[in-house]
């Protein structure tokens, strides 16, 4: 269980940080051009952060690597790459998980 203090600190901190990012160029830095190098760097950020966050969840996680989880993740990845559609990826992942549960006889 996460402590209430940690949760509220996280909520307040992320709320303020996100607002600051959003208001940055609209408000305080109004009218300034973003340098091309910064723009390219910013474009990379999600492609670096999300996989770093995802990888440990897929193979380890708190519940350990189980085949159902791997099936769900593989289905989401394939559908996401093929359709380039977030919702399709999520649905495929859920379908893959359900299928794996059925195949392994858990439901």
């Amino acid at each position, binding site marked *: *269980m*996460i402590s209430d203090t*940690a*949760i509220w600190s*996280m*909520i307040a*901190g*992320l*709320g303020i*940080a*996100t*607002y600051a*990012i*959003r*208001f*940055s*160029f*609209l*408000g305080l*830095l*109004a*009218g300034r*051009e*973003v340098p091309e190098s910064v723009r*390219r760097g*910013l*474009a*990379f*950020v*999600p*492609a*670096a*952060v*999300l*996989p*770093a*966050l*995802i*990888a*440990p*969840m*897929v193979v*380890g*996680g*708190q519940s350990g690597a189980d085949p159902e*989880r791997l099936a*769900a*993740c593989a289905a*989401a*990845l394939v*559908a*996401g*790459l093929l359709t*380039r*559609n*977030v*919702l399709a*990826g*999520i649905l495929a*992942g859920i379908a893959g998980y359900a299928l794996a549960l059925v195949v392994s006889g858990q439901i």
Partner: protein
Amino acid sequence: MAQDARIIGRRGFRSGLLAAIPVLLAVGPFGLIFGAVATEAGLDLAQTMAMTSLVIAGASQLAALQVLSDGAPAIVAVLTGAVVNLRMAMYSASLALHWSDAPVWTRALAALTLHDQSYALSIARYERRPDEPLADRIGFYLGVGLLTSGVWVAMTLVGIRLGAALPEAIDLGVIVPVTFIAIAAPMLRGRRSALVAAVAASVSLLAVGLPFGLGLMLGAAAGLAAGFAADRPAPKTGPAVLPCDGSGEAVCAGERAR
């Protein structure tokens, strides 16, 4: 420039509301998932709703929550979520070019609801109609932002109820990596982003035992370094690269359609 007595143009606002309807399909389910996952992670109603209304950025909310659940201190969770949201600085800069004559309070208001959809739909409209009056430009953006954010918050509430009602046997834990993969996969366009992703994932796996979310930070930093190393100036292809987070589906769809 023609002066409009009204600061927020009604016609633009109505167009914004209408334009936002299709993307609700991407926003709604993601809000639902966040509500359910946050509840399972131990957040109460007030905490989940405060987070979803203050942040309004699904991928960063899930990321921060995951980091906190893994036992990292709140500051690491905040940093992680903020890094996921850094792309919004790019949106902010791009939007500012079209809003330079707008009163500062409208820009402060706009910042509240700046996310993938409101940016993508608005910038597409501004480029299509460069002569639209400022009031209608502001109206359109706020129409999109209000509807998408409202549905986002409402669907989080539905997700909280749903999460509480789910039987124990169903492991919502699987939904988190699945959602993140679905968000990240469409961003992997081209060899460079695939390299960035592969390096980031491998390093964070190697560093998985480190405390305080350090593995995540090391992985992300290594991925970025690889991206910069492989980066060569390339011909520009459009106004801005739009990486999508969960709510970014419409952005990708819009890019494809162009």
